[in-house]
């Protein structure tokens, strides 16, 4: 064992590291680093050629600085030089620098590849290993192109050293992951499989990893590995713990290799050959048996290694899903772990059991552990373990235990961590719907959900309860009664008001017979919540009110009074105002028959997959969610759905099935018609409406719109708020509201420009159907070309997407293009329009000139139409530096010493457009003496429109 004295090798490096460690403050550290960087830079640039050792030392220092988190932008070349050194350590540091710092598409790749090629061909195993490591570490496409065909031959050559074989196998694996198409299959594959028989367990381990990856992609080519893997596994599990010498880890024989072999076998179904199959079953049984043996060591490493193999074996058993005895044994073993004192094992047991719950053979056995799992939910101190318990309860749920599980989840929800509440809400909602025998239980459960965790009840959940109530006559009366009671609570969640408003609006008549819930009482109850609610909810309540007018003529007058009140008719929100106006007119003008038709009860919704399930799937990713539909079908047979009228349960490809009109593409006709009803006034307001009602579907689609939440995108105000801030700068945030932030980065050269637009989703919900367009008025279209690249239609919560706009200035212009943005957020269509800060001055090229030249040109541009002058008050304090920065930002060159008065600013530049170039001179004279600070701005250009526009733009900046 070499004695490692600190700083052996490179003393300078050690001194530097000590220095850094002795730095008392971040500033001192940065100072020291900058000093060092300057030193290294000068050494690298110096005339004196550096010897290999120095190069190595400096490269190593750079590496250290990089690892401290600082950017390194030089030294790559020196590192590449080190690669061709014959000295091992120099080469090694060179490779290290490259694998840590060179990203896969660096320009240096070709040079690096050359060095690697030399080392691979060197037949020096140590050098070959370094080269292979470098390929694996960088793993770029260029490297794959250069070496993918060479490495297989190194791997299977008879005279290759074991250690090189190992490196070659893993190197190939990495290349296969990054650029599979470049790794040629061929004759070598058969020989790779035989490496499973190799004497050297290290080679077998590396080869197994490679074969597993390859077999996942093309299982047929590697079928022969099954028997070899089983044989190898069998030899390992039956070996005495000392047989494998150094490959025994804390008394467990070759745990890594075992895990890998078991993983490889999971690429395939159970072996068809009976003998092979029974040999594998024996192996798995042996592994399960060993779990019951007393531990050979008290060390945690022993139990971890042993259980790692056990869990992988259980994964294989679950994957095969064919041996009932093994499945049940596995399940019982996991049951033991559920109560183990190691948190890690409890976590893994819960996780594995989740998959076992979906097997027909073990579902019942899993269910026997329900009490333990519920207990885990209550007592585990670690939220990630509790999360697994929730998952398992969800997976083991069927009709027999649904009530218990849902009740437990609901009670857990009261105290659950905020991070997992939404998911629990979704799960409860799904289970309640799926296993509801009587729908009163379902309604109760959902209302409980809203009561306990209203904030986490997403739209999908409350949409769904409404959908189900509308589709199921037997539960409507109960639902109306229950929401009515729930609304009595002094403080109830807004989601409850939504559900309550919708249900009472549809079915309030079913409970109106009781004097305690008479129409007026119902209305007053709903209206008492009105003022506490957000706009969408108020809109929904207004729709409920008009439905009340139809259901209960006796409250018509009361409701009309409400609609007529200033707070409704003159509401500042367009949508609310429009609804109030339209509903009021509708209630005054329409006959009872018409009202009854227009405000008819909602027709049943077409059955679809629950969008809640879709949401959960999306949240968890398809792989993570055990498909409880399939599970149940297997376990309980096909009778499961017989009492359940909700027929379609198989996943349909379109997962995001929209439930309510708000999510549905709006019927184009309905909205303008409602609008016309409001605006046409007394003439013939309902002709269109009636015509439409003649066709059966139109009535429904009209009602659909009654409940829509978003105002139609008729006209959106263009946001210009930040426009002028971009006159003198190119980057920044141009728009921001509660949902979206739009940032810009722009660059211009001559008459061309490019803007990168960054759309940031500030919410945690995905934006759907995201699209943008750039609009220009007709005149601007001839002056300015804007080409927008497409933008991703989905923006995940918290994510940012980028769009590139290419701009060409054809001739001088005044207007600015408008960026229109549309997307769906939580079912509502959002429209945003932003004035894009593309102004004429962006196409400036600064021009330096002497005082003499300046005045000469100034005189030449003396025609009255060429000059525009403006005198204006200063909006900001006068600060010379700020003013200079603004003038430079405007795009012109700032000319010093031109104006006799040093307080004045003088600038010159040329505007580039495709057709012409316009020279431009400007002068800004601050008057600091006056009481009110004033400026005088003079612009002279050869074109009057340009002078005017530039003057308008710049005068707003001071």
């Amino acid at each position, binding site marked *: *064992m*070499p004695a*490692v004295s*600190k700083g052996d*090798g490179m*003393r*300078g490096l050690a001194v530097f*590291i000590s220095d850094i460690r002795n730095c008392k403050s971040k500033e001192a550290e940065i100072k020291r680093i900058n000093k060092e960087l300057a030193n290294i830079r000068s050494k690298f640039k110096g005339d004196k050629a550096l010897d290999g050792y*120095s190069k190595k030392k400096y490269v*190593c220092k750079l*590496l250290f600085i990089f*690892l401290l988190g600082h950017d390194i932008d030089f030294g790559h070349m020196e590192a590449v030089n080190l690669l061709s050194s014959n000295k*091992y*350590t120099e080469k*090694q*540091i060179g490779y*290290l620098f490259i694998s840590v710092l060179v*990203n896969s598409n660096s320009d240096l790749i070709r040079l690096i590849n050359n060095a690697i090629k030399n080392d691979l061909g060197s037949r020096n195993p*140590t050098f070959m290993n370094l080269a292979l*490591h470098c390929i*694996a*570490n960088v*793993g*770029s496409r260029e490297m794959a192109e250069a070496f993918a065909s060479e490495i297989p031959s190194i791997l299977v050559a008879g005279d290759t050293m074991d*250690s090189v074989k*190992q*490196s070659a196998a*893993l*190197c190939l*694996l*990495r290349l296969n*992951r990054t650029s599979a198409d470049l790794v040629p299959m061929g004759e070598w594959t058969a020989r790779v499989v035989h490496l499973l028989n190799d004497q050297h*367990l*290290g080679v077998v*381990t*590396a080869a197994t*990893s490679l074969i597993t990856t390859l077999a996942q992609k093309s299982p047929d080519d590697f079928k022969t590995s099954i028997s070899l893997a089983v044989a190898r596994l069998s030899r390992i599990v039956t070996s005495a713990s000392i047989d494998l010498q*150094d490959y025994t*880890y804390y008394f467990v024989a070759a745990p*890594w*290799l075992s*895990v890998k072999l078991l*993983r490889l076998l999971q690429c395939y179904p159970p072996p068809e050959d009976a003998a092979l199959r029974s040999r594998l079953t024996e192996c798995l049984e042996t592994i399960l048996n060993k779990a019951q043996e007393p531990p050979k060591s008290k060390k945690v*490493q022993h139990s*971890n*290694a042993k*259980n*790692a193999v056990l*869990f*992988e074996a259980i*994964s294989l058993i679950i994957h095969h899903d064919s041996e009932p005895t093994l499945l049940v044994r596995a399940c019982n073993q996991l049951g033991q772990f559920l109560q183990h004192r190691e*948190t*890690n094992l*409890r976590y*893994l047991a819960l996780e594995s059991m989740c998959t076992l719950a979906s097997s027909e053979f073990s579902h019942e056995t899993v269910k026997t552990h329900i009490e333990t799992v519920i207990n885990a939910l209550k007592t585990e101190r*670690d939220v*990630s*373990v509790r*999360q697994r318990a929730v998952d398992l309860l969800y997976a083991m749920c069927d009709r027999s235990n649904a009530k218990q599980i849902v009740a437990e989840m609901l009670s857990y929800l009261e105290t659950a961590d905020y991070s997992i509440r939404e998911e629990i809400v979704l799960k409860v909602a799904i289970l309640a719907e799926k296993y509801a025998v009587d729908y009163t239980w379902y309604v109760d459960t959902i209302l409980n959900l809203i009561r306990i965790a209203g904030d986490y009840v997403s739209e999908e959940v409350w949409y769904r309860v409404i959908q189900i109530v509308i589709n199921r006559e037997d539960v409507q009366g109960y639902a109306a009664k229950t929401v009515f009671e729930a609304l009595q609570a002094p403080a109830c969640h807004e989601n409850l008001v939504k559900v309550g408003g919708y249900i009472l609006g549809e079915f309030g008549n079913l409970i109106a017979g009781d004097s305690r819930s008479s129409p007026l009482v119902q209305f007053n109850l709903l209206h008492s919540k009105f003022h506490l609610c957000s706009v969408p909810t108020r809109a929904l309540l207004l729709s409920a009110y008009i439905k009340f007018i139809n259901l209960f003529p006796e409250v018509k007058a009361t409701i009309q009074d409400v609609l007529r009140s200033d707070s409704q008719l003159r509401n500042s929100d367009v949508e609310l105002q429009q609804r109030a106006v339209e509903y009021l007119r509708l209630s005054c003008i329409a006959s009872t028959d018409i009202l009854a038709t227009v405000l008819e009860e909602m027709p049943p919704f077409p059955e679809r997959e629950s969008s809640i399930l879709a949401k959960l799937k999306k949240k968890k990713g398809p792989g*993570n969610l055990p498909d409880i539909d399939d599970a149940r079908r297997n376990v309980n047979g096909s009778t499961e759905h017989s009492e359940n009228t909700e027929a379609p349960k198989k996943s349909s490809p379109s997962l995001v099935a929209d439930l309510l009109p708000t999510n549905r593409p709006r019927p184009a006709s309905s909205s303008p018609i409602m609008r016309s009803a409001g605006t046409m006034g007394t003439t013939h307001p309902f002709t269109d409406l009636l015509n439409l009602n003649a066709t059966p579907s139109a009535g429904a689609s009209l009602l659909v719109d009654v409940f829509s939440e978003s105002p139609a995108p008729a006209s959106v105000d263009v946001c210009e708020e930040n426009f002028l801030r971009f006159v003198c700068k190119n980057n920044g945030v141009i728009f921001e509201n509660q949902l979206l932030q739009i940032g810009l980065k722009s660059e211009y050269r001559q008459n061309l420009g490019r803007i990168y637009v960054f759309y940031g989703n500030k919410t945690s919900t995905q934006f759907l159907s995201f699209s943008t367009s750039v609009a220009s008025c007709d005149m601007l279209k001839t002056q300015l070309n804007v080409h927008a690249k497409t933008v991703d239609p989905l923006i995940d919560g918290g994510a940012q997407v980028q769009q590139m706009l290419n701009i060409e200035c054809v001739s001088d212009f005044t207007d600015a293009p408008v960026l229109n943005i549309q997307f769906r957020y939580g079912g509502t269509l959002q429209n945003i329009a932003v004035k894009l800060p593309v102004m004429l001055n962006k196409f400036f090229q600064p021009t330096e000139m002497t005082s003499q030249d300046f005045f000469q040109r100034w005189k030449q541009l003396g025609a009255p139409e060429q000059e525009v002058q403006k005198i204006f008050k200063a909006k900001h304090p006068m600060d010379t530096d700020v003013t200079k920065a603004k003038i430079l930002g405007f795009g012109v060159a700032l000319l010093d010493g031109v104006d006799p008065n040093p307080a004045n600013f003088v600038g010159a530049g040329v505007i580039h457009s495709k057709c012409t170039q316009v020279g431009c001179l400007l002068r800004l004279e601050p008057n600091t003496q006056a009481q009110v600070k004033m400026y005088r701005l003079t612009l002279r250009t050869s074109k009057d429109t340009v002078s005017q526009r530039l003057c308008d733009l710049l005068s707003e900046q001071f």
Partner: protein
Amino acid sequence: IKSTKKHCFGKLRLQKWYTATAERDKKKMVRELMQIVLARKPKMCSFLEWRDLKIVYKRYASLYFCCAIEEQDNELITLEVIHRFVELLDKYFGSVCELDIIFNFEKAYFILDEFLMGGEIQDTSKKSVLKAIEQADLLQEEDESPRSVLEEMGLA
């Protein structure tokens, strides 16, 4: 294994990425992970779900070792990957401490490289890995024996 890294109370000492990741994302991920892992209490389980990966971590004295693995990877064996790596460091440096890793970071990288390659175990035998490192050290000593301290000072 997608990446391994280790750090001590907010300072990253060693990081290794086995999938191509942009530098900016790396920094972001490291920051996020540190926050999550450092916030965890001693008795909590060593695994957690993070983005679409699983994080396996273990604390040795002041150093945390973290691996990010994929959905179907084996958590327990990853925990032992970490332990074996610590054993290797320990054996090589002779009862390793954080300072060893700071001052000999390049060696720590070499050991990691010998042990893991492309995110997969290259050799699980302690002997084989150490043998490879020792050989390299022998080569290094041959290289460097003639260098005098004075020369060093002149260059430092």
